[in-house]
Every structure is written in structure tokens, then in C-alpha cells.
């Protein structure tokens, strides 16, 4: 295993278990290692990789695949992704087995009921935080508001608004 692959494995393997609160919490650490310490990519490359991973389908944490690719080509992309997802998935698997084993005990029902309002508050919080970064201009707010209405109050698939908004951006309206 070459040196870069080993570095990727160790770096993302440890960040996987450090990413408490979600993949975006370790982005500053990924940036420091990939750009400042190991010089796998430039600052501009990192920002572009972040935007691409956010926009592309799938989890935004696939950013690490791009970092891995920059560091060591295709093997690097595979190693970085496996290291980033593997340990956290294994931990979640055993936690969820444990959780499901006690299904319907009184304390678990209480935890479910207690967690629900917190989770709803956190969902609004994530929406709010991203909104402050991406929303500029009347049309952008209009698209956001229309989507909220469609998702919350109708059963329609919101993908058509997504396409419309993409086109509006493409022709320079946003």
C-alpha cells in the first residue's frame, strides 16, 4: 500500500468516528489535512470539490472521494470513501441492533417521544442554516417557499421545482 493510501485510510478512518453530529462537522479538519498539511489539492480545488459533492446526488460526505482521488487516483477515492463510511456504519449498525432489541420497552417509547420534537427543531435548524448561505434574491426565496408548500401540503414530487430552479439559474435568473 503506498504512502498516500495509508494516509487516507488513517485520516478518514479516524475522522469517521470523530464526525459526531454529521459529516459536515469534520469539513474544517478535512480541509486542514488535504490542503494545508498534505498539499493534495489547492484551496480553490477544495472549495470546488465541496460544491460538487453538495450538488451531486448522494451524501455530501462523498467529498472525501474527490480528496482521495486527488491524493492517489481511483484507489485513493475508494480507500478514502471506505475509510470515511466504514467505521461509522459499523458503529451505527451495532447501535441500531441494540436499539431494536429493546423495542417497545417503556423507556424506549419515552425516548422516541422525547426525541421527536428535538428532531423536528433540528430539521428546521438545518433548513435555516443552509438558507442563510444559499438564499439571495426574490426568486430564490420564491422557489424555497414554493417547495416548502409543495412538500408539506401536497403529495407532489418536488423534483419538477428542482428542475425549474436549475433552469432558472442556468439562464441567469438567479
Amino acid at each position: 500500500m503506498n504512502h498516500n493510501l495509508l494516509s487516507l485510510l488513517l485520516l478518514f478512518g479516524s475522522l469517521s468516528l470523530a464526525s459526531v453530529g454529521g459529516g459536515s462537522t469534520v469539513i474544517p479538519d478535512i480541509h486542514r489535512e488535504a490542503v494545508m498539511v498534505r498539499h493534495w489539492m489547492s484551496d480553490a480545488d477544495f472549495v470546488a470539490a465541496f460544491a460538487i459533492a453538495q450538488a451531486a446526488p448522494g451524501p455530501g460526505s462523498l467529498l472525501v472521494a474527490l480528496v482521495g482521488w486527488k491524493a492517489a487516483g481511483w484507489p485513493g477515492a475508494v480507500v478514502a470513501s471506505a475509510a470515511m463510511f466504514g467505521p461509522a456504519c459499523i458503529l451505527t449498525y451495532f447501535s441500531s441492533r441494540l436499539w431494536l432489541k429493546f423495542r417497545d420497552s417503556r423507556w424506549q417509547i419515552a425516548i422516541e417521544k422525547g426525541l421527536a420534537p428535538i428532531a423536528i427543531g433540528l430539521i428546521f435548524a438545518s433548513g435555516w442554516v443552509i438558507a442563510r448561505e444559499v438564499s439571495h434574491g426574490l426568486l430564490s426565496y420564491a422557489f424555497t417557499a414554493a417547495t416548502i408548500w409543495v412538500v408539506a401540503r401536497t403529495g407532489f414530487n418536488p423534483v419538477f421545482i428542482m428542475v425549474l430552479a436549475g433552469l432558472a439559474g442556468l439562464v441567469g435568473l438567479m
Partner: protein
Amino acid sequence: MGCFLLDTMSDNQPAPRSMQRVRLWDIATSYLRISLSSFGGGLSAWAQLVVVDQRKWLTDEEFLSALALCRILPGPNQVNFAVYVGSRLRGIAGVLAALAGLIVIPFFIVLLMGIAYFQYQYLSGVQSALRGMAAVAVGMTGGMGLKLALRYPFNFWSMLIMAAAFITIGILRWPLLPVLAVLIPISVGLAWNRVPEARPPGEENHES
């Protein structure tokens, strides 16, 4: 109203005996749909739409509590959530099916987009299209929150807890773990009193 109509698999039934055995193929293709739909973001909103509203694999409350669990555990939230759903439905084979659907094809899409960008730098013209799609992704997250909030049987205290979570994390930007360390015991303690000793089928969910 119309909230907990998912009674065929109401959460008083132990999983997964209460439902028909879900096919691995269905888990993988549902997760592939979730991930491919999340162009521009909104992964968790798509997961809610497919897993809860369409497939009815989880109830609202199980979805919300699993989501909270997955946020506390390290790792990308939606990847963790896919692990939960897969393991809930079909154990370790279900986990692998859900992860295959969620990650494998997007892995290649991200790499191809990235390689195209790094080698030709021609993606910058698409930036504003991405911005438009991001505005919709924000709306999807907000809409999902609103939908779940409208279906949830709030009382005064749970409303207060929800507001506290939103304000501390969303507006004040306090770190997640200390906030949860305070809010979870309070909220679970308040909920404890509302859980009857031996839980009659479908209690409480049917009102409101």
C-alpha cells in the same frame, strides 16, 4: 389529522415480524431513488418521502427518533440512517442493500463531475444552476420539517423543546452535543410521564 394512518405497521408492533419481509432489491432501489433524487441536496427530505410516506417502512415517530439517534452517532447522518433502515428491515443484508443504493452510483457521479471539473474547469458555468437547485433543497428540508410538525401531536412542552432546539442550533449556532445533552433528558423525562405502563395498542396517536 390523517397523521397516523399507517396502522398496518403501527409502532406498537415489533419489527420486522409485523410486516411482510421486505425484499433486498426494494431496499436497494428505494435508496438508489433517494440518492439520485437528491441532486442539489435535500437527501433527508427524500429519505423521509420514500421511507415513511411512500414505502411506509417507518412511522413518523420512529423516523424522527432514528434520525435523532443517527445525528448523535458519528458519521454522515443519512448514511447512518440508511444503516438503521436496512438493519431494521433485513439485518446486515439490508444494511448492505441500502448502502449500495445510497452510495455506489453517487460515488461515480461525484468522481466524474469532479474529474471533469479538475481537468477542464468547465463546470463554473453551472454554478448558478446549482444555486437555484440549492434554494429548492432548502425548501425541501423546511417542507419536511413542517409536514412532520403538522402531523406531530404537540403539547405546550414539546413545542417549547422544539423551539429550543431550533433556536440554539439554528440561530445561536451552539454546538450540537452539549445542547442535546441538556434537551434530551428533559424531553425524554417529560415524555416518560405520558407513556402508560403497559402500552395499549395505538394509544394517543389517534387523537389530534
